[in-house]
């Protein structure tokens, strides 16, 4: 671990190294069989933790998803379920 004086971060992009998914206590799960790929969850995710895979499906990156559940709230056809996070 590097402790620069003044807590200065001297290389860009360090935010990526903080896997903030550890803060989550509720986990959103997309039911891909029912998802219409409208992309509203992707638009609303405040962390940019939802992305589109090669097949064009929306997926959640659980390394960074903090479990705010805005995606589940906004999904117009309610195919994002809320499950308890278990660690």
């Amino acid at each position: 671990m590097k402790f620069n004086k003044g807590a200065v971060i001297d290389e860009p992009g360090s935010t990526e190294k903080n896997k903030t998914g550890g803060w989550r206590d509720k986990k959103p799960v997309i039911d891909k069989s029912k998802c219409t790929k409208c992309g509203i969850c992707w638009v609303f995710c405040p962390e940019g933790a939802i992305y589109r895979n090669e097949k064009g499906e929306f997926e959640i990156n659980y390394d960074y998803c903090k479990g705010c559940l805005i995606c589940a709230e906004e999904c117009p056809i309610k195919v994002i379920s809320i499950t308890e996070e278990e660690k």
Partner: protein
Amino acid sequence: MKTLISGNEACAIGAKLCRPKVIPVYPITPSTHTAEKISELIANGELDAEMIKVESEHSALSACIGAQVCGVRTFTVTASQGLALMHEVLFNASGLRLPIVMGVANRALSAPINIWGDQSDALAERDSSWLQFYCESAQEILDTVIQAYKISENHDVLLPSMVCFDGFTLSHVSEPVDVPEQSEVDEFLGDYIPYYKFDIENPKTIGALAFPDTFMEFKKQQEDAMRKAKETIKIVNKEFSKKFGRSYGDGLIDAYNMEDAEKCLIALGSLCSTAKVVVDNLREKVGIVRVRSFRPFPSNELRDICSGVKAIAVIDRAFSYGHAGVLYNEVKSALYDLKERPKISNFVIGLGGRDVRKEDIEFSIKNADKNEIFWVNTKE
């Protein structure tokens, strides 16, 4: 060149000699004349700096931080409520390890409203991780501003400094001051070499979040830096003496008549001058230790110089309500490790600008061995 100037002007000229580039200020009594003098020096073309007239002291110190992270020397000055309003920004300046230097013309805090001198303002910022120097004369204010830049900017220290001087008794009193040549100060101080700064070629994040797994390490670094500052203060005091022919004790404490002292008086700031007159007229073996550096606190130095002393009077111009005088607490805690502990009493004097009289000092010396806290010269 010797000239007759007030403590506030000495502070301004001291700062000017260090060539700060950005000076954000929000004037407040009794420090106003420092800001006034600086604006005059800029207007005259004697100082090449940007003076920012901000909307509050909170903004003044924030602007210092902003300028300093861009790689320039900064300066500001305040007092009392103004310093209190800076409170949260003080911790940012020290946590970011920025060697800002600030003049503080010590004054009481309201309520009741009071614009006169005591040391409640700066001493209430004890734990902000700023170095704190307390001056005895206008000359010392000027010299300490120069020293403070040199100490703070040392890359082993990198903590901001407050140069404190008693409101009115120093800020508004004119004394002969030897003003060094600009070239001498340039040689002594050198150019400002920032430890880090914003740079488009090398992007950085400054002021980021530290999680619980790293926060303590950064705070420990600040304490390590404070410990290193003790040595740096002593070294800079010696170097200053070599260059300018003036020094202040060992930099941390300034002892007077302590060689064979049986009693001793410990205090901060200008009242030590009054105390010297009193001690000179007494037929007792009484010495004075003026604490010049309150942070870092000279615990070892006080232990060394006070071993063998039988009774100590600690004079305070600030009080920690519910306990005792601020300096008294520190001195007592430092001397606890002595094998033969002296008797030690606390004398609260001169709050809110009340005169510190010779009689008050005499009373303190006389009652030093009572092990009590006295509020001196107060009405029933």
